[in-house]
C-alpha cells in the first residue's frame, strides 16, 4: 500500500513539473487544462482458474493535464476478488497506479464544447495482496510493487460552462500487460466523468 502511494506521489510531481515546463516553452494556442476524474469505472477481463472470463469491476480515480493534443494522466484503481466459504476463503486486493501519456489524434474544440479521439501509452506499478482466512485465522501476503504497462484507445467529450470550468467524459479500451497478469495482456474498458479547470 505504501509503495503504491509513493508511486502516485512521484508521478504527480513529475506531472506538475512537466506542465510547468510545457507552459514555459511555448505560448499556448489553447489553455493548459487540469482534469480531475473523481468518478471512474473500469471493467477488466481476467481468466479465472476454471478458464472462464470474469469481469472485475474497479473504481478508478485520475488527475490529468492537457495541452492541445497531448495529455498526461495519473491514475489509481483497485478491486477486490473474494472466493471460498465461511471456513476457508481468500480475498485478493489488487491496486495499481499508472501514468498515461495520451495523444489526441483527432480533435475538434469550440468555446462551448469539444471532442477528441486519442491513443495512450501507460507505465506504472501494481500490487496484489492476498488475505487467506482459515477458521478465523487470517494471513496477509503481498506480491510487492511490480511494473506494468498499457496501451489505450478512446474518445472524450468536453462541455465548457465558461472559460475556466467544464465537464468531461471519456470512454476507452485498454490492453494492460505485466509478466504475471492472469491473461497477458489483460483487456479492460474505462468509463469516467470529470471536471475541467483551465489554467
Amino acid at each position, binding site marked *: 500500500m505504501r509503495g503504491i502511494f509513493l508511486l502516485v506521489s512521484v508521478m504527480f510531481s513529475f506531472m506538475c513539473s512537466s506542465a510547468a515546463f510545457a507552459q514555459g516553452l511555448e505560448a499556448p494556442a489553447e489553455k493548459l487544462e487540469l482534469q480531475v476524474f473523481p468518478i471512474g469505472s473500469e471493467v477488466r477481463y481476467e481468466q479465472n*482458474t*476454471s478458464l472462464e472470463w470474469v469481469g472485475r469491476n474497479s473504481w478508478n480515480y485520475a488527475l490529468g493535464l492537457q495541452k492541445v493534443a497531448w495529455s498526461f494522466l495519473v491514475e489509481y484503481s483497485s478491486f477486490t476478488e473474494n472466493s471460498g466459504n465461511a471456513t476457508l476463503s481468500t480475498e485478493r486486493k489488487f491496486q495499481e497506479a499508472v501514468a498515461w501519456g495520451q*495523444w489526441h489524434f483527432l480533435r475538434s474544440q469550440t468555446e462551448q464544447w469539444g471532442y477528441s479521439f486519442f491513443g495512450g501509452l501507460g507505465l506504472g506499478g501494481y500490487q496484489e495482496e492476498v488475505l487467506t482466512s482459515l477458521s478465523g485465522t487470517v494471513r496477509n501476503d503481498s*506480491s510487492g510493487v511490480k*511494473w506494468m504497462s498499457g496501451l489505450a484507445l478512446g474518445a472524450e467529450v468536453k462541455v465548457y460552462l465558461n472559460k475556466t470550468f467544464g465537464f468531461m467524459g471519456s470512454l476507452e479500451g485498454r490492453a494492460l500487460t505485466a509478466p504475471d497478469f492472469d491473461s497477458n495482456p489483460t483487456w479492460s474498458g474505462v468509463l469516467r466523468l470529470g471536471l475541467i479547470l483551465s489554467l
Partner: protein
Amino acid sequence: MKRVFSRIILCVSSTFCLISCGSSLDSSAPAEGSTFLSPMPQEGGVYGLEKVELLGVKDLQSLAGRFVNFFVSPGIVDGKLSGFAPKARFIRNSEGTYVPKDDLTQQMVAVYAHTQRLAALDDSLGAAGVNTWPRDIGISVRVQGGGGQNNAQYNGDADAVLLMMYTEKHLPIPVNGGILAHEHFHSLFYKLVPGFRELTASLHEDKSLFTEKQTAARGSLLVESPERTFTDEELTLITYFKGLNEGFADFWGWMYTGDPDFIVSSLPRETGRSMNVKSSGFGVYALPTQETVLNEIVNAKESFEQKQEFYFYLSGYAYGLGTMASRTLKVFSETIQKSRDVTTITARHIVGKALIKLLPQLKAADIGPEQILTKLAQSVDSLTEDECVWLNQSLAESTGLKKYSCQKNQEIFALEKAK
C-alpha cells in the same frame, strides 16, 4: 518538442514490449524447493495454513507434475478423464512462497500436497507400484442436472478421482486430507482385490457420469441394465464388497490424518460414519457374516416396492457395514498401540501395511469376518498375544462362534482353528 515526444513514445513502447514479453509467473516451473501456502491438517485433524513443498511440479499454470494431472470440469471420453487443465493463480510473497489467489487454486495446491504424501505412504506401506503416476484428478466437477455437489468419487474405469463442487460452509472436500486419502484408497482396493474390477463393471455404474440419469443413480448402490437382474447372492457380494471398500477407505482416511471424524469436518450430517467410538459394544469390533447380509437383503427386498428405493437402501446398508469395518480396524490399531507401546501413527501404519497385504487375499466366495480377520492376523507383522486375542474376540463377536485360538510359534502368535 516533437522529437522529445517521439522519444518518449519510443521509450514507453519499448517498455510495454519488455514488460509484456517478460518471464511470466504463470508459465514457469517453480524452482526446486519452492513452497506453497496450503491449508494442511495437523495430527488429529486440526487444519492450519502451512508452507508445503510440492515436488516435481512442471509448470505453475496447470500445477501438473510428477504426482497429479488436473482437469477442470472434466468429462470421461473412452474411459479416460478428459478436459482442460485449470489455470492456477498465485502471487509470490516476500519470502518466495507461492500464495493462491483464489479458492480453486488453493484446492489444487492442497490436492497436490496430499497426493504426494499419499504416494509416499503407499511406498512405505507396501503399495508402491499399484497406482500409476501422475494421478488424474478432476476438480470443480459438475454433474448435469445438479445433485452432484459436495461429494468426491473414485472412478475405476477412468482411474481418476473426481472432486465435485463444494457449496457448503465447512472445510471444502478438496482440501480435506482424510477424504482425499479415502478416495485414494479406493484406487488401491480397485486394483488389489481380485475380481473387484469385474464386479463393479457389472454394476453399470459411472458409464454416463455427467448425465441427469446418472445423477439420480449416484445415490444408489447400483444400476441394472435392462437385460440384467441381480440375484440375492450377487447383491450380497456387491453389498459386502462395497461396504468393505468404503469402510477400509474410511480407516485409510483416519490412518492418514489421525482424525476419526474427518468426514464430518466437511459433511456434518455424516456423523454415522464417525470412528470416534468407545472401544466396546456391537459394531465397534465386529463384522457381519455373509448370511446376515443375505437375510437383510431378502427382508429389505420385500419392504420396498420400487427397485431404485431398494438399491438406495442397500447403499446405506453397505455404508453401515463399512463403518463396522472401519471401527474394527481403528480399535485394532489402538490395541496394537497399547500392546507394542508405540505411537498412534506407528500403530496405524502397522494396520495399514497389513491391510495392503490383506486386499489381494480377499475372495468373493467366502467373504466374511472369518476370512477377513484370519487373513488380517496373518498379514500383521509379528502379531503379539494381545493383538491375537483381540482379533479372536472380534471374530467370536462377529460370528457368534469360538472356532479359533491363539497359538504361539517362535515368539509370534497366530490365529489358528481350534482342534
